[in-house]
């Protein structure tokens, strides 16, 4: 199946993206974000979950959390390119919320066949979710889990669960005698304990979640296949978030170097400042083009979705690192302070850079597809 020339990014997608941008710039400017999440600067501060649940409810009311839910399950059934457009705007605002986790769970559930229907209906009804599929070692290979399922009960701990304290539901992967299963659990169910991690990123929360004889609904007995099908969308959507955040970093830094004067000139006059900012733009645009290419492949060329999504996340992770470094450096002294907003994005990007695989990991996977598998130690 061939990709449409315009990525399938039609009028509806464009309207959604434009209205999301307006929503966040009207209701959640960066100063609001800073006031909300950066109250406590102490490095030894305790874990906090700071967000705006009222605005989240507005987003749910707008239908944004069920965009990817198929129409057959009561959702909107928008294409992945439209979802990527919305998430790009979410990233630009660095808005703390469980949207990414909900979208991720949606893509996995949609790959579970009839077993996922009830959980998808929960999401269509406004429940938020997060994936609990990572082990203590932080492996990004779907299937590596420290949770097991036997006798109808979950036991063990899932690590690096994103926005766990904001999510209503968890989609848990667990080893079964037959392989890997997927389970749908309420975050407040009996036997579920959320242990908040203390993290660098102020715009997210993260936790490890322990399961102690937790009764749960099995949504798939063949979780590896469902995860394998959904991972390209998970990588692509995160890459879209990164691209939006990186564009904020670029524009904010451009504005600063246009105002700040040294040696009787605005800083942006100097090529030592100008050229790195152009390089940031080049990296963002590479990543952004790869994001929409990957999203379009998810919609209309599934056989190449994994390959293109590896490219998108590898490129976005590199762009995140580079844009973050330059945003602090080119702000000079003020950029090194807590009061300047750039550290919020710097930290969010550091988190996003590694999440669901960093650039080197994705390139190694890509090489296995493009060149052919390489025998690895332990594999």
């Amino acid at each position, binding site marked *: 199946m061939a990709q449409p020339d315009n990525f399938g990014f039609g009028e509806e997608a464009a309207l959604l993206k434009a209205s999301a941008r307006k929503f966040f710039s009207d209701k959640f400017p960066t100063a609001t974000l800073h006031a909300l999440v950066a109250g406590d600067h102490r490095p030894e501060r305790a874990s906090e979950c700071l967000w705006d649940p009222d605005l989240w409810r507005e987003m749910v009311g707008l239908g944004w959390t069920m965009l990817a839910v198929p129409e057959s399950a009561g959702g909107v059934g928008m294409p992945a390119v439209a979802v990527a457009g919305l998430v790009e705007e979410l990233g630009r605002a660095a808005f703390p919320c469980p949207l990414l986790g909900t979208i991720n769970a949606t893509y996995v559930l949609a790959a579970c066949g009839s077993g996922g229907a009830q959980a998808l209906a929960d999401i269509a009804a406004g429940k938020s979710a997060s994936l609990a599929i990572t082990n203590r070692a932080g492996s990004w290979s779907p299937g590596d889990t420290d949770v097991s399922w036997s006798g109808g009960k979950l036991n063990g701990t899932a690590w690096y669960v994103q926005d766990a304290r904001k999510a209503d539901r968890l989609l848990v992967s667990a080893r079964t005698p037959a392989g890997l299963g997927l389970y749908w659990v309420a975050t407040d169910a009996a036997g579920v304990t959320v242990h908040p991690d203390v993290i660098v990123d102020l715009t997210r929360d993260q936790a490890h979640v322990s399961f102690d004889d937790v009764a749960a609904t099995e949504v798939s007995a063949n979780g590896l296949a469902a995860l394998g099908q959904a991972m390209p969308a998970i990588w692509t959507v995160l890459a879209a978030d990164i691209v939006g955040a990186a564009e904020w970093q670029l524009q904010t830094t451009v504005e600063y170097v246009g105002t700040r004067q040294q040696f009787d000139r605005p800083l*942006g006059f100097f090529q030592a400042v100008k050229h790195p900012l152009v390089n940031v733009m080049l990296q963002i645009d590479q990543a*952004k083009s790869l994001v929409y290419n990957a999203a379009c492949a998810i919609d209309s060329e599934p056989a190449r979705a994994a390959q293109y999504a590896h490219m998108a996340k590898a490129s976005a992770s590199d762009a995140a690192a580079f844009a973050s470094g330059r945003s602090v450096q080119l702000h000079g002294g003020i950029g090194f302070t807590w009061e300047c907003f750039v550290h919020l994005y710097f930290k969010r990007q550091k988190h996003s850079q590694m999440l669901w695989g960093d650039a080197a990991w994705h390139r190694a996977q890509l090489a296995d597809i493009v060149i052919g598998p390489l025998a690895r130690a332990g594999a």
Partner: protein
Amino acid sequence: MSESASKDSPEQAEFRQYCRTWLAANRPPDPQVRLPLSPLEIMTTEQLSYLQAWQKAAYDAGLVGCDYPREVGGGGRKDCQRVANEEMLSARTPYFPNVIGLGMAAPTVFYHAQEALKQRLLPRLFSGEDIWCQGFSEPGAGSDLASVQTFAERKGDKWVINGHKVWTSLAHFAEWMILLLRTDKSHKYDGLTYFVVPIRAALGSGVTVRPLIKITGETGFNEVIFDNLEVDDSYRLDELGKGWQVAMTTLLHERGAGELQTPRAGGLRNKGGHVTSASSLIEFARTAERDGRAAAEDPLLRDRMMQQLIREVGWTQSQRRSRVPALLDHPMRLQLQNKLLGSEISQDTAALALEVAGASASLYLGDENAPAGGQWHLAYMNSYGMTIAAGTSEVQRNILGERVLGLAKSK
């Protein structure tokens, strides 16, 4: 191509079908001579006449200049050059030899010349019968183009030209030159005027063309010396002192960011040659050996090859995205990156290929054991032509920083 075809207007769809049919019957036979990687490196008359015959045939069939009006020798169509280009590329045709004529001279003449001059020059430009070259750079005017010193002095309705142009690709074959001249020494930008000049007719009487030798050892470009060359005032484009504005039309189209789509053929695979793509690099790495296994099995080289592949696909996808306004923050943002990205990516891919080659990277074209017949060395060294010509990568970054990001101007 089917993905582009699905977006065609009725006129484009009909024209696409016409191009396909014509190309299926008329794509020229493969050349007997080795062709250089780019038309700017055409060295022999055998190469040139093969390519000129192809361009003439394509023009006569209506595949060149499709979007220009019929009065100036064009096809009078709307947005059809892109269709012809796509079909020629998928038919793997040779490229067109008159690359400066089509890409730079034609839009400049079209937007700035008198009607009679357009009607006289453009048909033979489109057909490739008249090869064109470009007289912009000088020994003292490279990145700072507006400092050109080649001077035209008024003498009645004639101009007398003296000076020295360099890096003039195709000048040894060219009938015509687009020429940026100084007509007033007291104003830097407003002292420039733009001409078209019949240089071939003046060889030996006012014009001297001498080859410059590139770092590869190949010829292909030249220096051109003007010694009291007399040129009629009717060859002036636009007004006196407007040369800089006219030159901007040329440069915009050269960077692929102009209104008119440049007629472009290509895709023909050269015998023993190749393109500097990441996929050709990967194929090469399968055959090159490193530490007793294929270089393609080396994890570090794999990572770097994937970096190149990702950059290349990203560049292609940015060209695609440049046509989707809803995914653009600034209308020129991607178009102005095009030349910079293309030249830097292929340079780095060729450089990596030479690392993959290992010890055999020491061998050049004349050695029978040279990897890929020495083509990677040629590609690598010639890539510096691309990162320097048409505005160096440094100038491209200034343009992007100033026009797209709005940073303070460097001059």
